[in-house]
């Protein structure tokens, strides 16, 4: 159960080696005892994350999870909730995909769509049903500012995040009064593994900063959080720029 001061007893991380997801787990673990379920594609990184969390005192369970295998999601979510209530679930899997390659190779484009949108909808619905049944829980969905207005250089990724953002926002509204809280997180450029080959954009942030913002937003029952917070106003302005002008921006 979530404590009155917003400390959970269990966290499910979907995308078990996600840097932002693990940063969220780390912060909760620093504040109290925690049961962690890491669901992710088996890898050295996932194993290392599980070992590190266990050493830090967490009770860790690892579940193999391939987001693109939509048919496996039902069983995965059942297993994730089998060990007891899940207080916070973080939907943190996703791929960036190289825009130029994806425009040429349909398979790559569809993989980005499958992972970032279709799989997220599938797992998001299953987790929200399980939380509705247990009568409480928080679902954190990692969206992106890239979904706010698609850019020429990154519109495939942007379009999947736009879809995910719309889905999660609507899901949150549909769950009002059910005891289940959906938080949509819109980070800007996050400096990390996913973006190490890219030049940081203005107002870039870090996984740790996103985690801090997520914890604060969950505590105060917010439904949307921008990281950094100033992006909300920047994007609000960008959203209203005329298209010919927006296209010419070096974004």
């Amino acid at each position, binding site marked *: *159960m*979530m*404590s*009155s*001061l*917003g*400390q959970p*007893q269990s966290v499910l991380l979907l995308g078990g080696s996600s840097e932002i997801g693990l940063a969220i787990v780390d912060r909760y673990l620093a*504040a*109290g*005892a925690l049961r962690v379920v890491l669901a992710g594609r088996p890898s050295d990184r996932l194993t290392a994350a599980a070992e590190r969390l266990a050493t830090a005192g967490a009770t860790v369970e690892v579940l193999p999870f391939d987001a693109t295998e939509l048919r496996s999601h039902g069983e995965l979510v059942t297993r994730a909730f089998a060990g007891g*209530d899940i207080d916070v679930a973080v939907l943190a899997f996703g791929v960036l995909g190289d825009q130029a390659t994806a425009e040429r190779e349909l398979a790559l484009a569809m993989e980005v769509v499958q992972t970032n949108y279709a799989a997220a909808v599938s797992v998001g619905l299953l987790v929200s049903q399980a939380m*509705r*049944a*247990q*009568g*409480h829980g928080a679902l954190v969905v990692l969206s992106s500012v890239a979904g706010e207005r698609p850019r020429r250089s990154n519109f495939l990724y942007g379009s999947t995040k736009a879809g995910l953002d719309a889905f999660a926002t609507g899901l949150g509204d549909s769950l009002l*009064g*059910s*005891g289940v809280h959906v938080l949509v997180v819109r980070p800007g450029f996050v400096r990390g593994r996913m973006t190490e080959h890219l030049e940081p954009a203005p107002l870039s942030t870090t996984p740790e900063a996103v985690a801090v913002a997520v914890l604060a937003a969950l*505590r*105060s*029952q917010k439904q949307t959080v921008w990281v950094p917070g100033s992006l909300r106003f920047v994007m609000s302005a960008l959203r209203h720029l005329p298209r010919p002008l927006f296209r010419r921006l070096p974004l």
Partner: protein
Amino acid sequence: MSDRRLLAGWGRTSPTSARLLPVGTAEDVSLAVQAAGPRGLVARGLGRSYGDAAQDAGGVVLDMTTLCRVHSFDHETGVVEADAGLSLHALMGMSLHEGWFVPVTPGTRFVTLGGAVAADIHGKNHHVDGSFGQHVLELSLVTADGGERRLSPADDLFWATVGGMGLTGVVTRVRLQLRAVETSRVTVDTERAADLDDVMDRMVRGDADYTYSVAWVDLLARGRATGRGVLTRGRHSRRDELPASADPLSFAPRASLRVPPIVPGGLLRRSTVAAFNEVWFRKAPRAARGQVQGLAGFFHPLDGVAGWNNVYGPRGFVQYQLVVPEKGVDAVRTAVTLLSAARTPSFLTVLKRFGPGNRGPLSFPMAGWTLALDLPTGVPGLAAVLDRLDELVLAAGGRVYLAKDARLPREHLPAMYPRLPEWRAVRDRVDPHHVFTSDLSRRLSL
């Protein structure tokens, strides 16, 4: 699932959803218990527990307030038998003009008899009269098998139920010994105390002379005034202390104010609480003796403001109540110094000396000192401050009050309640599959 309701404690933190089922008879309770699903069931009275004791996420919550008949009331002996959903407010309304007052009352009249048993509530008279369970002559309990049992203080299940947070079964009836009073007034002495040592010293020296004793402490006072406070102590007024024309047993309290359900957060911040505390301290007489007050004003000042918990805004507040044994008294001093230094804006900080505890393995009171705080959840660093208080309380051999808790880490429970195994043995005998479940029991693995 459309019949689900969001339920929270009085502190309004951590709401969860459950099916809320009103019950009118013990048979209703029995049927509901037998039909309880995998998420279990718990009884809920008037929802005055601050934390998560009367909610059961995904399960069934019985609304007991519709089970509220009075079955018998003996005007000669003051013994009353009533359904568990009856409130102390309704009970007083009936009994007081016959010269009978409840044996123990908390800071609000709006608690049910069943809740009073389950939390084994205490009041300002704990140092002389003990807690609520000690005045219960018999009670009826619907257990996990659906049967209704009659229990007396000779049964270990009786004492597992007193303070058992509703986890041994559903209390359906209570037979209670009331206290004889000549009037519905209290004769009160008020004193200001310059600092915490002064407050405690006056309590140690004078409490035995009073039926009721409590001190309000200013947690935002600093330096030499750290822990300054106002003691209010009293006893029931005698008939001859009232003017001849007065109706000695009149009782007609009214809620004159109402806080709307939507108040912006942050109204209670350090500056406003500090200002309130200053006024509260200054307005108290340096020393006043023999002031005659109404019962409601003395015992239940906040009942005059309906929905006062809304003042804390949408994020709610937490209560933290600790008790430490006499030998651990330094923990109270350390706690006050710590809270003072952290500038935590608690405005209803109450200090009291408890008398001995009772046989209930999960009953909260023990001989020593109890300190209760209420704090807006938004205070920066609050979680860490309360974690440190836990450590202090543990080191001093004390505990926190489960009826107010919604944050205690579960690993602290066995040390705070050393008789937990004894309680579990009784509970597991009558409810092996843990039909009776609440968010509190789930959070603490009770």
